[in-house]
């Protein structure tokens, strides 16, 4: 079971929770289950999110494995200049 942390505007989409517990082995599974549980996450996922696993930020590698006990944050997708 992972503890997944949220900040920024995403907390709004997960009923105000700072973190939730969820079972997921990859980023793809995590995002799929998040949308299943919190339908308001759908628009965020479509607009683009990033997932930080133990401090390393992944934007597009949805196949990335999430180790057991990893620190996981769902973050806004960053834009650059």
């Amino acid at each position, binding site marked *: 079971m992972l503890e997944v942390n949220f900040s*920024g*505007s995403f*907390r*709004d989409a997960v009923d105000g929770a700072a973190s939730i517990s969820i079972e997921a082995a990859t980023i793809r599974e995590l995002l799929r289950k998040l949308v299943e549980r919190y339908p308001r996450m759908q628009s965020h996922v479509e607009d683009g999110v990033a997932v930080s696993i133990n401090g390393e930020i992944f934007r597009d*590698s949805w196949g990335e494995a999430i180790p057991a006990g990893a*620190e996981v*944050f769902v973050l806004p997708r960053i*834009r*650059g*200049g």
Partner: protein
Amino acid sequence: MAHDKRYTNQEFKIVGTRPPRPDGLDKVTGRAKYGADTFAPGQLDGLILRSPHAHAKIKNINTSRAEKLKGVKAVITSDDLPDLTNGNRGMFDILENCMARGRALYDGHAVAAVAAIDAETARRAVKLIKVDYEILPHVTDVDEAMKPDAPIVQPHVRTSGVEPKPRKASNVSQVSEFGHGDVDAGFKEADVIVEKSYKTEQTHQGYIEPHACLASVGPDGQGELWVTTQGHFFFRNTCAALLGMDVAKLKVTASEIGGGFGGKTHVWMEPVALALSRKANRPVKLVMSREEVFRASGPTCSTSVDVKIGAKKDGTITAALATLRYQNGPFPAVWAMLGAMTSWACYDLKNVKSVGYDVLVNRPKVAAYRAPSAPMAAFAVESTIDQVAARIGMDPVDFRIKNAAREGTRASYGPTYGPIGIGPTLEAVKNHPHMKARLGKNQGRGMACGFWFNFGGQTCVDLNIGIDGTVTLTVGTVDVGGSRASLCLIAAEELGIAYERVRCHVADTASLGHNDTTEGSRGTFSSGMAAIFAARDAIAILRDRAAKTWEIDVEDVAWEAGNAIAKGVAHGNLAPLTLEELAAASPNTGGPIAGHNEVVADGAGVSFASHICDVEVDPETGATKVIRYTVIQDAGKAIHPDYVEGQFQGGAAQGIGWALNEEYVYGEDGRLQNPGFLDYRIPDCSDLPYIDTQILEIPNPNHPYGVRGVGATSIVPPLAAIGNAVSNAAGVRMTHVPMSPPRILKAIKDEQLDIAAD
């Protein structure tokens, strides 16, 4: 991600050297072709009619007289750009920014466009278009726009990120909160609390090359677009979606680019050029004037920020709070959110909170500008950091070192840092000779830190070996800062050949798989990663060809220093086969030799910089001269140090202009008063000292060569470093950017009045 982390600390033979850039001769001789430098048979000149009003209802547009003018081949309005966005509000906003739809939302908003046989006819035609406006109340200031009685910019917008869900329209499109701990408890622990408010004015990226394109769409639905852009694949996808074209039928070619800095990551008038061409059935060239660039293409935000820091006398920060209000122009975006995420990223804080308010106003749509949103947040935070250090009597560098984030620190925006470079940049500042140099009369010194995320993204590279053994590297990331030179170095390093044997090209969208836009310091990071893997792919084929030539097992062939080597005692008498020999023999060993790679280049390392600045302020005129400037930044690994230093210096130069002079000035009527380089003053050579640089190399463990990306971070510290220097020189805290002569004089006078009153 499938790369070998053992390469992080490898020794390099070619990477890290400083050969001439492959595009250098073209650029200094004028042979390089920029956005406006191409032509097509039958080409028309396009021109856009823009709103003179900050906010107005468009009651009617009469184009009949323009259409009848001899030489006019097409006139378009929003009716010619129907809404095909299928409920995608973000895409609809892009469409609406390209051409107003019933309301003009800012001074300069496009309302109609013409294509004619020459520029003079186009100008006459635009004057014949009659637009019936009903002027609406407007708002251009971020703080004014947040007031309850402010004119509403977008009636459909409800503030997100707050509970309960608002039912009324608001100019605050989003509220974003980041942080951890308990700031109220933290402030109670503090011996000293400093609270201050700051403002920064809107600035433009100031790229010298205006937006320009040549568009051609035929009746068969096929089109081409030649354009100055940071991301031609993104432009293709966006333009195709807005115009209802198949992506595969629109070929976009990126010209050489005369600066972008984030401003060319958005489409502005390219869909208009394509729509004009489609209607006229002729190619259409559209080139913005400088005035149009200022009025209608992406400046960065103006901001209003409050910062509160509490600290113990020993220098430990106990609590940090920032409230950031960023104006986005008339379309919802996330610029305040980015400011909130970056504001405290340099520090290891137990109790921290930042709240961002994204605010709509009647100004042009805001675009990214090099580490977007971070410089303004850093100005407020780093200015306050200096004041806290002064209040507790601690050296400002030591105060920062004591509180600096390090490996294992939980970042204010959430995750825990891996290996990072803020501490080493601060130690380098402390030990730099610049910090020990004596200052003269009316001179002051300041320093500041900055942070940017960096990222990678989708990337695709081809590496083709010619019949003579020279190598063509084909990439899809636009070269905005010397990346072609860096990528040639990387390919040469992997293949073990000379830099001069590799030539790098930026492919059009029909010639390579999708590549994300060159933004967020990703060009060399991501295409470099793909180039490494493509070269290794090619090496595997070269080994196979050598094995065939020798009629031995491929496992007995190694690749060393540009040669195939037969391994083992049984093959010891075989002379090495060079790349040239293998290439020449390729027709009879299996055909062309090429490597290829597609990668999602995640794992970009976060980046930190610390800057030192000396200024001299004339107390009579308020004019500031930057007399010495030093940039210290972690590059991960500097592939081509000249261009790393160039990025450092460029960011500092742009930051100096932003800090001291540059400013969008709006009149009471909501119209931009200074849309030109005479009245909007960017720094020239005479305004700048030599900008010294120090590259730190703390390898990014997630890149095969340790690269972090360097383009963005260097613009983050300058506003604050200069603000601290000017404040020290003038003897008064500066809280409003730009610190132009009138603002400095007023601050000095106000301070004198305060002292007299006391």
